[in-house]
């Protein structure tokens, strides 16, 4: 066992960070925040395709890099850190299944149940993961679907200014979609969950940095606010959440086992949402403004927390897993005849 990043993985991460900063600098992020309605940047999508974000795991003969889920997780962590817009996870999963997805010439969004779908109006295809086999709704039917949704919300009502949402009250019937028999929806769902968790992890790490940077320079009562324990402890808990989520997400990328994946999503969601809130708190009044980037992280974190495995779904699945886990022994006699004899000593100094 060696649960450290390899040299290549470290390099991949730092190169990716540099690339995303160049492709999507802060000014570009703020432009997309102010853009009215659907203003999807297809040029950026193409560049992300060129960078291999979508094709990464395809075999080399199909234009991919033949890398695996752990490497994809490193890229998606950086994407979350940079707040890259668009249905990144869905298009990545569609690479190799939907023409153009791997290259970034086709924008694919995805859902696994009725509810909000991101970037539905600009997507070229909708990937449906609601059964044993994935199925695809191509662009032609997609516009029909949008028109046929009387109670769909206006896309600009999305809480996240960079992610337009449409509400799908029900999913399109099978006769309107094309089945994708060569893939298993359960596997794609696990991967979608891990890759979404990876973005949450990246966001959590970024808001931690933003909070610490601010706490070092913002002065009140004649000292940096980071010298006050109340602020220090907020920041310390942000680091603890990030590192616990990191261990869970990286492990899930290696095993792809349902309990590891559920734990990763649950803890990464928590890290992203709570770190963004603590970052906002450390920034004080500034944190409550539109100009600060904190709210963009928080809103995207809320959005991703509602995707795939939500906290309720993850916790419920993990609970069921406890009963299924054959490693746990059956319940012992609960009363101990010897009196108080804890499994572990009360105190150790």
């Amino acid at each position, binding site marked *: *066992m*060696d*649960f*450290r990043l390899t040299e290549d993985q470290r390099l991949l991460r730092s190169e990716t960070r540099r690339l995303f900063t160049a492709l999507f600098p802060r000014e570009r992020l703020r432009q997309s925040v102010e853009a009215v309605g659907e203003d999807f940047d297809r040029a950026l999508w193409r560049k992300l395709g060129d960078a291999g974000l979508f094709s990464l795991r395809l075999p080399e003969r199909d234009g991919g890099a033949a890398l695996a889920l752990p490497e994809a997780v490193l890229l998606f962590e950086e994407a979350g850190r940079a707040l890259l817009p668009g249905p990144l996870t869905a298009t990545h999963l569609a690479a190799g299944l939907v023409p153009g997805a791997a290259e970034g010439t086709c924008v694919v969004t995805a859902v696994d149940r009725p509810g909000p779908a991101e970037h539905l109006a600009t997507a070229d295809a909708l990937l449906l993961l609601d059964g044993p086999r994935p199925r695809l709704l191509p662009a032609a039917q997609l516009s029909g679907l949008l028109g046929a949704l009387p109670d769909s919300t206006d896309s600009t009502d999305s809480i996240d200014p960079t992610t337009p949402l449409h509400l799908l009250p029900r999913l399109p019937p099978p006769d309107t979609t094309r089945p994708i028999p060569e893939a298993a929806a359960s596997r794609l769902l696990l991967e979608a969950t891990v890759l979404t968790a990876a973005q949450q992890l990246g966001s959590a790490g970024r808001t931690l940095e933003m909070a*610490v940077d601010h706490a*070092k320079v913002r002065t009140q009562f004649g000292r940096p606010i*980071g*010298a006050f*324990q109340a*602020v*220090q*402890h907020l*920041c*310390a*808990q942000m*680091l*603890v959440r990030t*590192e*616990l*989520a*990191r*261990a*869970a997400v*990286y492990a899930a990328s*290696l*095993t792809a086992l349902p*309990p*590891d994946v*559920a*734990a990763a999503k*649950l803890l990464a969601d928590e890290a992203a949402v709570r770190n963004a809130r603590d970052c906002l708190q450390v920034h004080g009044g500034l944190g409550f403004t539109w100009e600060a980037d904190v709210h963009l992280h928080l809103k995207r974190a809320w959005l991703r927390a509602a995707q795939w495995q939500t906290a*309720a779904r993850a*916790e*419920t699945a*993990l*609970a*069921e*897993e*406890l*009963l299924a*886990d054959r490693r*746990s*022994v*059956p*319940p*012992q006699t*609960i*009363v*101990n005849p*010897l*009196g*108080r*004899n*804890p*499994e*572990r000593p*009360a*105190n*150790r*100094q």
Partner: protein
Amino acid sequence: MNLDDTPEEADFRHRLRSWLHRTLPTLPPAPAADDWPARRAHDCAWQRALYEAGYAGLHWPCEAGGQGAGPLRHLILLEEAEQAGAPYVGAGFVGLLHAGPTIAAEGTAAQRARWLPPILRGEEVWCQGFSEPEAGSDLAALRTRAVRDGDSYLVTGSKIWTSHAQIADWCELLVRTDPSAPRHRGLSWLAMPMNAPGVTVRPLRTLAGSTEFAEVFLDEVRIPVSCRVGAENDGWRVSMVTLSFERGTAFAGEVVACRRTLGRLARAAQANGAWEDAVLRRRLGRLHAEFTALWRLVQANVSEAEHSWRSGESAVPGVGGSVFKLRYSHARQELYEAAAEVLGPLALDARRNWTADRLSALAYTIAAGTSQIQQNIIAERILGLPSGRWR
């Protein structure tokens, strides 16, 4: 990045597992909680069994009597032993996890030869004399004095929260040897024989009802200078080696134990109907995530330690242990709060194992550095925030 055993690791795990399978059924049952001589004998016999099978001091250096294996092998031992339901390190805790590693890292050849083999063979038990009534989180405020008198120190003062003091042979003692020096620079680390004249042990009763720890009064206790580990007045640095061990891998086996407990909790809830409550189920599911991730964090920390060890750097766990300790101690408390919900009114029965564990878990956010101190350490040493302490 991988989580798989190498062929050597798998082979080691396999042999260990079959040894545990053969050996554990032959062990006597655990003695009563407050029968300290019997508990000492029980814990030492288990250590002796480990020693004879070649599993004692697995990750200690060979020149310290260990097997010279890396931290990863030790983790496999902790994982498999706990999974198989082996006895806990118990009375051996301080010797094996604190004092021993400190002596191995900082002691002379003669000191290693004197103290380490009896620890590994389960013959001598150690306790820890660091905290004092007026020096808890602020350890450097300690006042127990050691005055040089020829080839000895005369030590006077008092120590508190000393686990296993009543059955220990030796005490790792932190004392003030230079009262005129700045607080951290006037301390020394001594090994004190517990049977020396002038040592008085007064057991303290914990809120769990156990007599786990004690107050230790020292009245002109004569300790040979040869019992000092490290240089005179360098005791702060020497003791920090110990504390970072404590926060490193000391709790790794317990995470495995907590995961087993969680499985039992779910089954107990299913048996008594508490499982019908969706809120409780979600609570147990969240704890499953928590302990799954904590185990992954242990694997990450030990992988770092293994790398340092292989590249010949110091094998002392870093401040990252604070991240683990902070989250683990709270998770453990949450686990037994959930256990109380599963038990329902029966949780008020003090004879229940889980009730006793619920009580003992309360110590975890205090012992080995309070949660507040851990957060200070993380903020200042990892995040680089300015010091908030009064100077």
